[in-house]
């Protein structure tokens, strides 16, 4: 019953909006923002998350009187997560005279649309992180998710500059994901003048990690960084404690799973895991407000953190319009490129000249005795 009421209410609102747009001549034309996202297909829940987030932000802003005295109007195009459809969407949204487009979810769809927006001078902000997206250096491109290398950079910064670990031992399994992350962390730790004393391997799933840990114990590391998966990570932590190793344990993002604490048992408490927090766990007050509003409106949590990075793209564009008092693409682009730091829902960040996000959404959190997480760094701040 409640559902129907809300649906009818929303329909009424849309009808009112249409009336307002056509009926009242003196009202200024709305500011149009596009959403290009996979509303259907494999990534439908992600695409719908982006659509819902952008509509929510627009509705909130309109309730406050819109921007520059004008209402925000959201135009949606479903790219189905496919390159061919993405190009069609891009032309359609350009023809609709949007000033900025939020999305798409996949790098491939963002890439196909990129030159069309660039030629039409329409701002494009997407969570795509493929290096291809940075190749042409389009002024209209603003990636809103952290690049793939950000986790390693954050990890190195945390180990060397925040915790001041002297001797760092790195452990990885043989998977391409874990070795890639481990190699990047080793390189970034060295760049931060940290001391990697050893990089060792385990066979994922072999369970027998005591031999390699015994070897590492004799080297007296201050911290053991493990880039592999939780099922091995929990066991490594347990065997470290069993062997009497004093080193701290820091794990990569694949260690975040409820099973980690269960497997490590009493040894889990105090382990640190580095990952992007899930939408519900984001520590920033703006994020908590947004997630609560999203849940209240749609009855579910955002499907992933990428819903929120795209929301950050929308928020940045709205801030640019308000700050420059303009909807001219050149002015907005200059403002977005020039921002020193933007308080996003997913942490503070800025954009470099290529439109790549600098400032990572990663946090280091500590596993508690009851298996829950407590964020250690960056310390949650107001803002």
């Amino acid at each position, binding site marked *: 019953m409640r559902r129907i009421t809300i649906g009818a209410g929303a329909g009424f609102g849309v009808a009112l909006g249409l009336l307002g747009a056509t009926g009242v001549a003196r009202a200024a034309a709305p500011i149009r923002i596009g959403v290009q996202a996979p509303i259907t297909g494999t990534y439908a829940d992600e695409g719908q998350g982006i659509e819902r987030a952008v509509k929510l932000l627009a509705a909130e802003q309109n309730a406050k009187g819109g921007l520059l005295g004008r209402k925000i109007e959201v135009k949606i195009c479903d790219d189905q997560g496919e390159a061919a459809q993405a190009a069609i969407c891009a032309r359609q949204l350009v023809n609709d005279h949007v000033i900025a487009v939020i999305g798409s979810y996949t790098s491939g769809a963002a890439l196909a649309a990129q030159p069309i927006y660039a030629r039409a001078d329409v701002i494009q902000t997407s969570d795509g992180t493929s290096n291809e997206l940075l190749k042409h250096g389009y002024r209209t491109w603003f990636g809103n998710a952290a690049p793939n290398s950000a986790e390693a950079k954050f990890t190195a910064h945390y180990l060397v500059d925040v915790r001041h670990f002297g001797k760092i031992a790195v452990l990885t399994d043989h998977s391409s994901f874990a070795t890639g992350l481990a190699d990047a962390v080793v390189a970034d730790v060295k760049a931060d003048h940290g001391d990697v004393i050893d990089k060792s391997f385990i*066979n994922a799933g072999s369970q*027998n990690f005591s*031999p*390699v840990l*015994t070897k590492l*114990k004799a080297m007296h590391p201050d911290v053991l960084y493990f880039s592999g998966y939780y*099922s091995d990570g929990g066991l490594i932590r347990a065997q470290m404690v069993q062997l009497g190793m004093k080193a701290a344990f820091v794990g990569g993002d694949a260690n975040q799973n409820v099973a980690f604490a269960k497997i490590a*048992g009493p040894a889990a408490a105090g382990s640190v895991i580095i990952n992007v927090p899930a939408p519900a766990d984001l520590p920033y007050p703006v994020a908590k407000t947004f997630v609560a509003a999203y849940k209240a409106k749609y009855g579910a949590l955002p499907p992933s953190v990428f819903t929120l990075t795209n929301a950050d793209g929308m928020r940045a564009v709205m801030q640019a319009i308000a700050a420059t008092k303009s909807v001219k693409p050149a002015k907005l682009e200059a403002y977005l490129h020039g921002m020193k730091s933007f308080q996003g829902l997913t942490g503070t960040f800025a954009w470099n000249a290529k439109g790549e996000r600098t400032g990572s959404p990663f946090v280091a959190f500590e596993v508690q005795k009851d298996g829950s997480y407590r964020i250690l760094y960056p310390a949650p701040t107001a803002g």
Partner: protein
Amino acid sequence: MGTFIQQVVNGLTVGGIYALIALGYTMVYGVMRLINFAHGDLCILGAFVGLSLLTGAAGSGHPGAALLLLAFVVSIIAIAVAGVVLERIAYRPLRKADRLAAVVSALGASLMIENGIMLVWGPQVHVFPAGLLPATTWHFAGATISFVQVMIILASLVLMAALYAFVNHTRFGTAIRAAAIDQDAARLMGINVNRVITSVFIIGPGLGAIGGLFIGIYYREAYFTMGWTYGLYAFIAAILGGIGNIPGAMLGGVLLGLFNAFAAGYVSSSWQDAITFGLLIAILLVRPSGLLGERVAEKV
């Protein structure tokens, strides 16, 4: 020195588990000339049966040691029954058939048990309850040894000694050895070969269930594909010692555990398995029938 002793303890613990599982391969091979590829999966099935009992009884207020003992008894019985059923269904009808048919049947049985575990318990990682055994650890010369490790090493040694005594110093043990040498001759001497084979499928999987449960208690996790990993290691341990040879399986298991610990600890962790198995190939090149020789029964 502390590091060296620690590596020996590490190696002996997993080596003991490998040996317990390897005995199942070697006994079946000794009597039937068949590699029971489903053996590793039977062992892990034992771990899962024990896991269900332990998690079901967790928080019931009974002491951990008593629950554990019950888990071992139930798991041994369940897996011994499963072993006998496996032999009846998958191997007995093929006893006179081509050898290859039995091998394919064994591989099929392995997949069936593995996927059966997945269907019943699910594909995720399962965790054994904590605190069943005292968390006591002993330190000497810089090495740390836990209660669980001591228990596994001692229990493996006792079980292996008992099996050795049973096979070599009892009438039924003599019957097993006779059937291993020549089934037809054994039958002519009045030995019930079918009973011998059934007994082998009780003892091997029974010991395997103990090995599987040891894995669960030591690492506190179990997942359905584990049977393949441990089965492979134990099979190799059996080959290393000389397949069909009971003391050989024990020696092979312990040596494999030690090799693995020393390879990871002193040579290179990234080449751990390559070094272990390289060494194995080298040994087999010098002694093609394993360290203690294949089918020791012929020498009796």
